[in-house]
């Protein structure tokens, strides 16, 4: 771990300008991912600007019926929040399925969104990795890639995004509130994370020095009937092989009035399954239709040596999760 300067900014503009002055500076919040990567030598900033105490650590209802989550809200406080539990249960469930009790007490909302992939080659500075060292090659492409992407990957990078929380927020049409030198703006969460393309070293669309200050969840009635299902080898304390965040509204005639569906563990970003959603809207809810919709979403899957199982796994979990929601389970 290289030596670095540690500083606490007095306020948000101070933090943003601190980064503006230092090209090799980074924000520190809960530290659960950053400190891990500092020790591995994967990240080597010269300055850490501590923002943990700067942004809001509360969950507030917005006038339009939505909810604003401060970036400093810890994962455990967010999961336990009464409003989230009753109106957006998929988010509580996603958070509770992630990490451990201890980690959730440290990790923040903003930091969770920005956590880095768990690709073993990215975390190992002795192996080539385009994300860590542009142009060095992707070791996972021909290596151990059971945990890697089946959708939206490129020849330069097949890493997956590890967050559970972000998958749920993606299904909920969340907006990320960002402050930069030019003020505040809100971006749809789908536009926060990137696919790797030719620039796998860029995980998000944020510019250097932009700070996530909050996440807004819009009013979404069907979110009350939502669910997160995470598949992993171990029963707890493990990253997802595949996960599904879903919200469903079925009419009295048994057809899908509206649906939200996002997948984790399959791509470089939380994967909003818009094709499947599209295919389901207005259709009767039954196993055959769900299976067909899942297949449409997964038809572009590109498989590596070890990850072909993710296609039937994702399909099965999509079907099961939506059936459970339809049946009130």
């Amino acid at each position, binding site marked *: 771990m290289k*030596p670095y*300067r540690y500083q606490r900014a007095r306020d948000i503009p101070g933090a943003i300008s601190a980064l503006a002055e230092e090209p090799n500076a980074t924000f520190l919040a809960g530290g659960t991912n950053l*400190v891990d990567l500092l020790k591995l030598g994967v990240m080597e900033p010269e300055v850490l600007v501590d923002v943990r105490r700067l942004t809001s650590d509360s969950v507030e209802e917005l006038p339009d019926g939505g909810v604003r989550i401060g970036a400093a809200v810890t994962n455990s406080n967010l999961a*336990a929040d009464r409003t989230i539990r009753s109106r957006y249960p998929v988010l*509580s469930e996603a958070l*509770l399925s992630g990490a451990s009790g201890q980690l959730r*007490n440290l990790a923040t909302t903003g930091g969770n969104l920005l956590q880095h992939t768990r690709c073993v080659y990215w975390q190992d500075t002795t192996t080539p990795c385009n994300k860590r060292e542009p142009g060095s090659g992707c070791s996972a492409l021909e290596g151990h890639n059971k945990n890697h992407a089946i959708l939206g990957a490129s020849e330069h990078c097949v890493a997956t995004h590890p967050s559970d929380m972000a998958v749920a927020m993606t299904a909920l049409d969340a907006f990320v509130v960002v402050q930069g030198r030019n003020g505040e703006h809100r971006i749809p969460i789908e536009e926060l994370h990137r696919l790797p393309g030719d620039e796998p070293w860029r995980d998000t669309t944020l510019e250097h020095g932009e700070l996530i200050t909050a996440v807004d969840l819009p009013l979404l009635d069907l979110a009350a009937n939502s669910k997160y299902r995470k598949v992993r080898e171990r029963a707890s*304390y493990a990253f997802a092989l595949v996960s599904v965040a879903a919200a469903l509204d079925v009419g009295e005639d048994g057809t899908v009035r509206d649906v939200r569906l996002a997948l984790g563990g399959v791509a470089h970003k939380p994967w909003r399954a818009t094709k499947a959603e599209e295919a389901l809207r207005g259709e009767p809810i039954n196993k055959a239709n769900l299976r067909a919709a899942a297949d449409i979403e997964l038809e572009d899957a590109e498989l590596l040596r070890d990850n072909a199982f993710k296609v039937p796994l994702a399909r099965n979990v999509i079907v099961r999760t939506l059936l459970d929601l339809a049946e009130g389970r």
Partner: protein
Amino acid sequence: MEQEITIKVDGTGHRLTVDTRTTLLDALRERLGITSPKKGCDHGQCGACTILLAGRRINSCLALAVAFEDEEIVTAEGLAEDGGLHPMHRSFIEHDAFQCGYCTPGQIVSAVGMLEEASSGWPSSVTADLDADEIVLADEEIRERMSGNLCRCAAYVNIVSAISETAGGEARR
């Protein structure tokens, strides 16, 4: 680069100069000689370093000392106010909830923090009703909530019974 910090551990204040890279775990173990939090993985993947920070259980290996100064820290050694044994300590001994003992202080601190979380009504990923006001700490709940503490000797079965009995005892009070 170094920085002066103040930390309060198990009721005693300490003023020391640390490298900005020093974690709370290393500050406690190497600088203050407090051996109760253990280093098992140094990456938040085992829970042996668990401490209470402002009353909440955290992995001290991922917390930079400079970032968490001025906050109250409790280790397994400081759980009992009189320096003796906390009921959770006693229950772990009676249930033989450890073998090599290396993960044990972390398990015990984690268990104490976990009971506090449960009594605050926090659900877990196995809680059937997310909206429930009260958490019933069935074995399944304890297992899930304690999964951030690995034990290679695999004393899990006894850890669950040790915690269950302590939790029951507290509920009866």
